[in-house]
């Protein structure tokens, strides 16, 4: 196996491991650190694919991705966390042990579902495709089973990282214009969610979305 394939496997493995670690850790600050690791792994995937396919514009896209997903977005989430303890702990709807077992099932599901895509090509990128799908599913799991708004933002970022990974592994990236558009949308979404979280906290005293089931005066 060539070193490029080995590097791609390692980057994809680190990508999936970061998703698992975000699901495992209760503390939103620790989850932000793992988001940085995941952004770096995604940049690694893009760089290895750029070296492999010899597309120089992939390097520019990789730099943009690295800046956005490993630096800017985790910093935004980190700054939205207040020092109060009730915002730092996630309050999952299913406990952490059960979510980890559900993640194992989701990884197997992702591998089973993407087999037709993997069989299309015998390259290392196609073999690593199920990892992107698995991260999408794990991101959905985090988004759906967490109560606090900040944890849901982390899940949303996980989902988007997974979608980008699938785009890179399946199609060697998207055109640079599309990537710029998607990145700005993501940045805008996180900024809006930050403002919304601050307003929620100011109005209701907590960001537990399960408490907000009916209209109040």
């Amino acid at each position, binding site marked *: *196996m060539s070193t490029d394939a080995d590097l791609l*496997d390692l980057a*994809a493995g680190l990508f999936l491991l970061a998703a*698992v670690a975000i699901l495992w850790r209760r503390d939103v600050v620790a989850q932000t650190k793992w988001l940085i690791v995941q952004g770096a792994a995604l940049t690694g995937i893009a760089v290895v694919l750029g070296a492999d396919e010899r597309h120089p514009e992939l390097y520019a896209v990789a730099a943009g991705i690295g800046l956005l997903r490993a630096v800017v977005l985790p910093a935004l989430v980190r700054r939205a966390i207040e020092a109060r303890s009730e915002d730092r702990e996630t309050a999952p709807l299913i406990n952490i042990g059960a979510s*980890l077992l559900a*993640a*194992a099932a989701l990884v197997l599901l992702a591998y089973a579902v993407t087999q037709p895509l993997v069989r299309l090509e015998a390259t290392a990128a196609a073999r690593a495709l*199920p990892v992107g799908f698995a991260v999408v599913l794990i991101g959905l799991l985090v988004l759906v089973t967490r109560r606090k708004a900040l944890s849901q933002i982390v899940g949303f970022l996980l989902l988007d990282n997974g979608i980008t990974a699938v785009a890179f592994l399946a199609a060697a990236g998207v055109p640079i214009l599309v990537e710029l558009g998607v990145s700005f949308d993501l940045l805008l979404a996180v900024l809006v969610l930050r403002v919304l979280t601050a307003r929620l906290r100011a109005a209701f005293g907590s960001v537990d979305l399960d408490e907000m089931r009916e209209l109040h005066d």
Partner: protein
Amino acid sequence: MLAISLVQAFLVLFGAPLLVGWMRQLRSRLEGRVGAGMLQPWRDLVKLLRKAPQQPEGTGPAFRIAPLLGVACGGVAAAAIPLLSTRTGLGAGADLIAVVALLTLATAALALAGLDTGTAFGGMGASREMTITALAEPAVLTAVFALATRVGSTNLPAIVAATLNHGARLASPATLLAAVALGVVVLAETGRLPVDNPATHLELTMMHEAMVLEYSGPDLALIELGAAMRLTVLLGLWSALFAPWGIATGTSVAALAIALAALVAKTALLGALIAVGEVFMAKLRLFRVPELLAGSFLLAVLAVTASFFLA
């Protein structure tokens, strides 16, 4: 060669308390204490062996067999694992699943002995220990499958020889994930932090110590020796699977001497890492331990999928 297996078994028998003494001494020094020296566990064992055997009223064969089974399983596992050379005399019997089963047999025997005493602490320790073991077993077996799919068999010498021949396999995601998963399981099975505190005096925080609370004299010596052998065997297994450099593939004396030095160095290093980590770690609360073991199981599942699909 059967002689190599016997040498391995005796090496683990006599070296295990030294390893425990090394870890305790390192931990003492880091905590600012003078420590009792590396030979203290052997001094304790000799002292205990000289005492008169006592058996609590109402206990039966389960209580008597557990210490013997602990040492015996540790010895047979030490004979089966290729610690010094891949040419152990056990052939197809040196199976990874068989070694895991042996160690679980020793745990189950100890849990039964804890129940046999009829005391509250024995029952509590036994139930906690079996919960941990029941959650750790799927992780171990899944990680074993991850390693075995690469080679096509669960025979330990075959796995170690394959890893020695293809050194690049060690950097693949499957092996790294399996290494972390098995590392967590080793901590759980040997009763180290963050799963169980080996130095605690409070019965409510004990698991292993609660089960053996009623033992005294030579039986307690065998229990301690069995626990030390278990730690040595598991650290040796981990280093044979994931850091097999130095293990001899033949039977020449020079290669075996190098293998001995490498084994001592690797086991001492792993023990030192665990001891240093224990200084900085706190014990997890009991209801958090299933979380840790579920995470270890997930990592093992990822290792299996990675070895099936990414290779």
